[in-house]
């Protein structure tokens, strides 16, 4: 179906819905006593993590093991990378070792793209987050979570048509926001991004989103879901905003804003959360918060992606 998963921009509506449907099948098997499926038996997958991310790595590892793949975890720390080996040399080494698929997290935007496009290695590549570019499996799990919550048992083969989603926070540096904007749009949702002007990317007017600086005005309009993004405190020092208090007052999902929110508005956060900064604990722990659903669904979505890129490859090539 797809040779690699690098960006949600590359997914057609049909492909995205198929991935969400397969995720639902995976969720079904996850409810069994024996959660393991043999689909990737005999396949070796390397989780190539050049950047710390316990959550994403474990989610992929669980997904790989549920599909019976052999898993190699490669983290930049303690590897030859720390000794100055080039990216290309590392990849060529993995090729010679005969891995069947690469899941890559990298601080450089575009690193997974190079892996997929260059002749350094010829196996399926899954982007597990690259720089400030994309994090496609996060967007897929967000879409899956929204779809499952909205449509329940009749979610299969549906998109997110008509869903109104508000994304709040550091859009400029967020790979989660980018992947979500493309995917939500592809699936038929309407997206509004809200942030201080300093944290909005240049050229945003060419993207399929509405833009606002005023969170209260946006939340006063009907919406179906609010996605809060993590804001890193180091942005303060780079003069993107004055201080945490002012950010929170202007763009946080504070207790007061949460209380004004309709109880059927879904609340999402990709984690890890800065409680009391971009999101209040009351909002994070509310029944309408899907934060824990997101974590659980992450495994099923990643199983679906792994299954999709790693099977049928002989036919494709």
């Amino acid at each position: 179906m797809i040779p690699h998963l690098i960006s949600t921009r590359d997914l057609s509506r049909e492909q995205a819905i198929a991935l969400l449907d397969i995720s639902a099948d995976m969720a079904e098997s996850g409810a069994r006593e024996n959660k393991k499926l043999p689909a990737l038996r005999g396949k070796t997958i390397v989780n190539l993590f050049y950047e710390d991310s316990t959550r994403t790595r474990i989610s992929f590892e669980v997904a790989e093991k549920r599909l019976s793949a052999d898993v190699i975890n490669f983290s930049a720390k303690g590897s030859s990378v720390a000794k100055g080996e080039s990216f290309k040399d590392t990849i060529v080494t993995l090729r010679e070792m005969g891995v069947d698929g690469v899941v890559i997290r990298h601080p450089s935007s575009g690193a997974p793209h190079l892996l997929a496009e260059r002749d350094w290695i010829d196996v399926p590549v899954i982007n597990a987050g690259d720089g400030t570019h994309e994090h496609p499996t996060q967007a897929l799990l967000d879409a899956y979570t929204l779809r499952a919550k909205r449509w329940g048992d009749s979610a299969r083969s549906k998109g997110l048509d008509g869903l109104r989603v508000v994304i709040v926070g550091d859009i400029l540096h967020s790979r989660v926001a980018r992947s979500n904007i493309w995917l939500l749009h592809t699936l038929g949702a309407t997206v509004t991004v809200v942030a201080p002007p300093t944290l909005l990317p240049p050229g945003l007017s060419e993207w399929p989103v509405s833009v606002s600086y005023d969170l209260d005005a946006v939340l006063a309009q009907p919406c179906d879901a609010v996605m809060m993004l993590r804001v890193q405190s180091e942005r303060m020092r780079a003069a993107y905003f004055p201080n945490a208090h002012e950010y929170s007052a202007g763009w946080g999902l504070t207790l007061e804003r949460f209380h004004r929110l309709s109880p059927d508005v879904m609340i999402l956060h990709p984690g890890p959360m800065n409680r009391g900064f971009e999101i209040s604990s009351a909002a994070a722990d509310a029944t309408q918060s899907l934060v824990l659903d997101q974590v659980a669904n992450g495994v099923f979505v990643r199983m679906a992606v792994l299954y999709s890129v790693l099977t049928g490859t002989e036919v494709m090539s």
Partner: protein
Amino acid sequence: MTSNIVMQSADVTRAITRIAHEILESNRGSSNLVLLGIPTRGVTLARRIAAAIASIDGVHVPLGSLDVTMYRDDLQKQPLREPAPTNVPVDIEHATVVLVDDVLYSGRTVRAALDALTDLGRPDVVRLAVLVDRGHRELPIRADYVGKNLPSSSGERVNVSLSETDGVDSVDIEREAP
């Protein structure tokens, strides 16, 4: 391409009824029986067989579906297959499970089904019911209940149509025009 109908609607119904009788006979009744269809047409056939058993014996045997996609040994060689739902309504531990499929050919689908079943539990007995057995087995697998044995060449295609999915009940063989 020429197409040759080998089972009409009445033939299909008769075959299903006969399979239902045979299942009841060899199982000495309907106790402990679970019918699991292999998607998609196997599920439809299982439903028909269950209905036939109900009309003979008055008992509604448990009925489910067993997807085997993830257990196939040809995942690399086929275009991506989207899995179908697995739905097993009862505990299959100690049950007599009858797997139901439309066509038995290489035997690889049944092999995958046996693996899938193993992951769900340990039935006492597993049987296989198919509407058509067209031969050309690649594995040591045989069906316990067969609607029709249909010797065919590997160049031919056997198509099973069922009214629920295809609008009509029939089985035909397609072959390349000479």
